[in-house]
């Protein structure tokens, strides 16, 4: 078994893409059901975190800009770590992720264990 990082991204910049509080609330159940499903398979390593939408980007020469999504429209909204036997299986687990229903996507990356 290997560990994989699932990164959730979606467009959180454009006005149309903003979720209303009601929509956010409605996402809670499918999201928890999906996490529960992975956990019930004993494949959840870390339930991760959600990330706030504001942030700063620090660049060389003392340049600090506001917002993590200046150059790209898609921002990271959160992440979890799962356990799977292969990259394919980890991708399979992501297929039911509720972020896909609101125009987002899941990036699946294997973690390389520290020696």
């Amino acid at each position, binding site marked *: 078994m290997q560990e994989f990082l699932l990164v959730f991204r979606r467009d959180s910049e454009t006005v149309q893409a903003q979720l209303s509080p009601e929509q956010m609330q409605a996402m809670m159940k499918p999201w*928890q059901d999906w996490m*529960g499903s992975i956990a019930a398979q004993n494949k959840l390593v870390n339930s991760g975190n959600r990330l706030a939408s504001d942030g700063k980007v620090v660049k060389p020469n003392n340049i600090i800009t506001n917002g993590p999504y200046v150059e790209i429209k898609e921002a990271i909204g959160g992440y979890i770590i799962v356990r799977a036997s292969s990259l394919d299986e980890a991708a399979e687990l992501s297929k039911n992720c509720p972020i896909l229903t609101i125009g987002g996507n899941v990036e699946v990356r294997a973690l390389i264990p520290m020696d």
Partner: protein
Amino acid sequence: MEQHQLLPHLFRTEYRKIIAVICKVFGIEHIEIAEDIVSDTFLLAAETWGQKGLPKNPTAWLYTVSKNKALDFLKHHKIFAQKISPEIKNTEPILYELAIDWSNKNINDSQLQMIFAICHPCISTEAQIGLALNILCGFGVDEIADAFLTNKETIYKRLTRAKEKLRIEKVKIDLPSQLEISNRLATVLTTLYLLFSEGYYSTSQNTTLRKDLCVEAMRLNLMLIEHPQTNIPEAVALLSLMCFHSSRFDARTNQDGEVILYENQDTNLWNNDLINKGEYYLNLASTGNKLSKYHLEAAIAFWHTNKKDTTEKWENILQLYNKLLQIEYSPIAALNRTYALSKANGKMEAIVEAEKINLLDNQFYHSLLANLYMEINEAKSLFHLQSALLLCKTLTEKNIIIKKIQAIEALKN
């Protein structure tokens, strides 16, 4: 109380107190000496009370006699006395006289410290439960063997090895430091949780004994929350969970000791006092910002105190299991979550999820799938019942499964 009942009763209530107070003075490395002194005291009580009649205050008699025996021991073993407490330079018995203190406060403090000594991470959880029953609850080796469905020799060896380990590790009878207490308390709560489960789920036929185990776990848990340093929301949540579970104790088995499943239980046999206590402690536990697995399990047990099937109930139970599994995976939580899913989101979704959890060597996994496939796919339902039959261990369970198989086959014809 009749005289012949009094001594066993006092043994159950006072043994643990006397041993904690004396052991506190002698140190855990001399626990066996303390045990001998307390046993001698009870033996003497059995002999003399029978001949001369009961003393005016039997409990005080036990305290005085055991104290004198302890002081005698120290007097006759001066070298021992110097060894056990080099910090007390003056080995005059007067100091021990002060230390063997029968005030309620010292009895309670000593017992609480004893809980921490026994639930020490250096010994296995199995041994912790055995020692807890033996030292903190006054259970004999026979009873512990009965509860664990094993023989006396095994238990005796387990206890001896555990005491040896406590001696080697020089475990102190003391409350852990403020820094350490939360980690150590987690071990204590796990032991109490397992002690309770041992009583609640044990297949031992001895119902009285099983109930005693549950009561003892609750009593020890109550001691934790009565002490300001150990009164944390997690401990309160665990007590709430135990109250909810024990409220169904009488309803969950029939006269022959066979398990009655939740949906077939007679709610008149549920104990409302315990349900109310469970709610009281659950509310009390709802402070702080840590949602522990005990909170979640207590909340799940709370929703089960209402037998009516409502969408609200099963949706709440499902979400609690979702959270519980994110904190800690266990096969039983995965199975229960899937059952709740079938009630909240429908059987079809639950079947898809059940096929994913893949606990092929678990009898309850097959029982669950058999249940979900009922009325949807008879052949699959039958297949899983037969798989469950092969895996189950008790005759009672076998009979239940055979009845279900026969019911499906009768429908076919």
